[in-house]
C-alpha cells in the first residue's frame, strides 16, 4: 500500500501562513468595501487572524500566555463591537446612509 500523500501532521508555519492569508483578506475587505458594517466585519476578521497567531505561538512555547492575550483581544473586540455598532446606528440615524464614501463631513 503506497503511503498517503498527505502528511500526518502539519508544521506550525502552516498555521502562521493561514493567519497571514486571513489578515490580508481582512485588509482587502477594509479597503475595498463600501458598507460601513462590512468594513467593521473586516476588522473582526483581522482580529481573528491575529488570535490564531497568538495561539500558534503559545503552542510552540508550551505556555498559556498566548491564550490569555487571545482572551483579552476577544474582550476588547466585544467592547469595540458594542461601541462601534452604536456609532453606526447614530451615523445612520443622522445621515441616512451606510456608505463610507458619503460620510465625508470632515473633508475640506
Amino acid at each position, binding site marked *: 500500500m503506497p503511503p498517503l500523500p498527505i502528511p500526518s501532521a502539519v*508544521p506550525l508555519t502552516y498555521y502562521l501562513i493561514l493567519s497571514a492569508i486571513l489578515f490580508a483578506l481582512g485588509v482587502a475587505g477594509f479597503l475595498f468595501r463600501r458598507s460601513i458594517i462590512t468594513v467593521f466585519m473586516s476588522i473582526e476578521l483581522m482580529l*481573528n487572524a491575529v488570535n490564531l497567531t497568538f495561539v500558534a505561538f503559545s503552542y510552540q512555547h508550551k505556555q498559556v500566555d498566548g491564550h490569555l492575550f487571545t482572551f483579552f483581544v476577544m474582550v476588547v473586540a466585544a467592547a469595540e463591537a458594542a461601541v462601534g*455598532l452604536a456609532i453606526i446606528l447614530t451615523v445612520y440615524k443622522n445621515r441616512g446612509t451606510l456608505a463610507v464614501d458619503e460620510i465625508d463631513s470632515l473633508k475640506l
Partner: protein
Amino acid sequence: MDAILFFLFAAIAVVSAINVVVQRHPISSALSLVGVMGSLAVLYLLLGAEFIAAAQMIVYAGAIMVLFVFVIMLLNAGAEKSLRKGWVLTALAVPLLVLFLGLVSYIIQRGFPDAPLVKFGAFTGGGPKDVGAALFTRYLLPFEITSVLILIAIIGAVVLARKEME
C-alpha cells in the same frame, strides 16, 4: 488525521473569508464570518486551546455576530453598490495580494526552518483550569482593567444609541 483536519478547516476558513470580502449583501458577509470563526475554533482545538475554542464560539460566533446581524436587520441594510475605484486598481489588487502572500509565506518558511509539527494532544496546558489560574495570578491587573473597559463600553453604547431628549 491532524493534517486532514487542518487542511479541511483552513480551506473552509479561507473560502469563507473570501466570501466575506466579495459578497454584496452584509448578511451574507456576516454568515460567512461565522464560518470563519467556527473553523478557527476547530483549529484552536487542534492547537490545544480548549478554553479559547469554547470562548471563540460563545463570544465571537454567539455574541458579537448576533450583534452584527441585529444591527444589519435594524438598519435594513441592502446590497451595497460597488465602490468606484477604477478598474485598473481592482485588476491590480488581486495579483498584488497573491504576490504579497507568497512573499510572506516564503519569509515565514525561511524564518522558522525547524518549526514543530502540530500534534493534537501534544500541548494540554490550555484548559479552563490553566487559563483561569494564569488569569487570576499573573494577569490579574489586566483582567481588572478589562472589567473597567467593559463598563465604559456599556455606558458608551447606551449613551450613543439612546434617543435624544428634547
